[in-house]
């Protein structure tokens, strides 16, 4: 199954490399340079997107406003916010209330591989080994608690 990803980001250089890295993982990726463009693509509905990567600080429409509109179009689509603006608790609160599925920090600690991994983990369900490992952990914990 091919998953479809939409990147809404005004920094074209950033979205270029993120898109390239995601494409290498087999995802279909489209990029929008601002919120309005992103919403237009969503409204057209040509492609059913599985996940949106959303920047917060963009011209015209701020990321949180875009998210509000996205939720009107599609309440369940996964949205991962990524930004190097992370301190503003008010904005974060608003985002959480609108429903975000992940938060990735850009800037000094930006890491392309972990960004791709986070997105992958949102889309691709756990593989068999990971599930076994988790179950094992869970059972060990229960056994420990019962002793």
């Amino acid at each position, binding site marked *: 199954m091919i998953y479809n990803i939409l990147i809404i980001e005004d*920094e074209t*250089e950033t979205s270029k490399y993120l898109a390239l*890295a995601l494409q290498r993982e087999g995802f279909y990726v489209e990029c929008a340079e601002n919120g309005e463009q992103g919403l237009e693509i969503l409204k057209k509905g040509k492609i059913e997107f599985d996940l949106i990567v959303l920047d917060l600080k963009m011209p015209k429409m701020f990321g949180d406003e875009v998210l509000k509109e996205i939720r009107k179009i599609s309440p369940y689509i996964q949205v991962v916010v990524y930004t190097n603006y992370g301190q503003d608790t008010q904005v974060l609160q608003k985002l959480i209330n609108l429903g975000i599925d992940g938060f990735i920090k850009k800037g000094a600690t930006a890491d392309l*591989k972990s960004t791709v991994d986070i997105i992958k983990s949102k889309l691709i369900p756990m593989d068999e080994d990971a599930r076994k490992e988790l179950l094992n952990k869970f059972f060990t914990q229960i056994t420990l608690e019962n002793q």
Partner: protein
Amino acid sequence: MNKQTTNILDFKYDSGNNKANLFSFLNIVKNKNYNIKNEKIEDFVSILASLLSDSITYVETEKYLDLYIKEFPDFYNSNLVTYILSVYEKYVGDANDKSKAISLATNIVYNAPKKVSYALSSLLRICKTINKYYYIDDLFSRNPDLKKINTFDVLYELIFYYQYKNDSDKIEHIIRTLIHGFSGNKQILQTARTLSIRYGVYEKFEDLFKDAFAKFEKKPPKSLKKGNYDEVFDTENELVVNSYERALSSAALADLTQGIAHEFGQPVTNIRYNIQFHTIIFEEESGDKVSKSLVLNCFKDILIQTERIGNLVDSLSPITSSKSMPSVFNLYKDLEECFQQERVRLKSLGISYKIEVSGFETIEFDKIQFNQIITNLIINSIDSLEEKKESLGSGFTPNISIFARKISNGYSIEFSDNGKGIKVDDKVRIFNPFYTTKPPGKGQGLGLYIISNLLKMHSGSIKLDNNYSSGAKFKIFIPK
């Protein structure tokens, strides 16, 4: 349940969704007891409030209230009316639909002269919440005298009305009225002082405030000499103002650091993504050879990003460097040069400019920094004039003018334009770093911050002229 419904406290417990109880209760209030004492009215109000906030009883209560108001003898002049208005304001309709409260308040304004002030402040409050003031505009145009009501409730709300109208003169006028009219009320004076700070006009009223607050100071103990007493008073008075300024400057610092972090964060992200992406690619290549064009592409992108960082460093350097190279230069010529640099945009927008230097010719200052100050102001003006021209069209003739003169301890340079001006609530913040009212991509919000820092370094200053309303006007002071 055989309790008497006339007992108000019992009624609270019995009401539930029992309409009959409510109706009979209201009827009793209306027919027999409408002169009930104040505390009973408050009970009545709290019952109404609880009935209105309960979705089961809401509709019936509201309907009944309408009926009740119609039948109540001389309702608008009764002492119930203000309570019902406050219930309407708080509990009836959602935040954006306060039509009941609005129509009741309007009716009170027209029918009950003694309760006008209460109704008007309620109406102003509602308009403030919905951020639309057409009810007030309508009321004021029919009845201009309403603007003259000077109770504290109304004056306080009027400040927000004039903020909405962007009328700083009126705001100042209200603050002045508060100081003069309520000189005996310390709390109101404190409110007025906070408001004056919020709207950046504290300095204008500083002396008035000092005088007004002085009246509340206890007489100095005998052991304290007069000098000491003055000191004590000054400390207390300045405490508020200083802590405000401190908060303002730490907020400005937070803005600055967050802004810098964001601006640098973008190119850093790009460089990191670029290198990380190419690392993956190169690692996957078998052997030691990699494509030359891929490497060159990678380098090119990194260089572009470092240039961006470099530009940002350049634009920040005047804030951090204190080096300056003063020289003596001809002011008129220099100003003319600054305008010449921007001639392309000035010409294409049809902006005319006027330079007047009166009583002196040369000035001593760091020329590069001075040009940075003037150029920044010119660019701001052009942006503002462009926006105004876009909205007004060809009938608008944009202009910028500079008037420089010698004053006792230095030089005064007044820089003004007839652009879109600066909104009342932006006025306090325009000198903060990364604060911009321009559309995205038009500016980093550093211009005025840099200007004010450059001038501070030379013991000069820049201030916005609050009284100027046909655009923006800055007053620059450069010491001799």
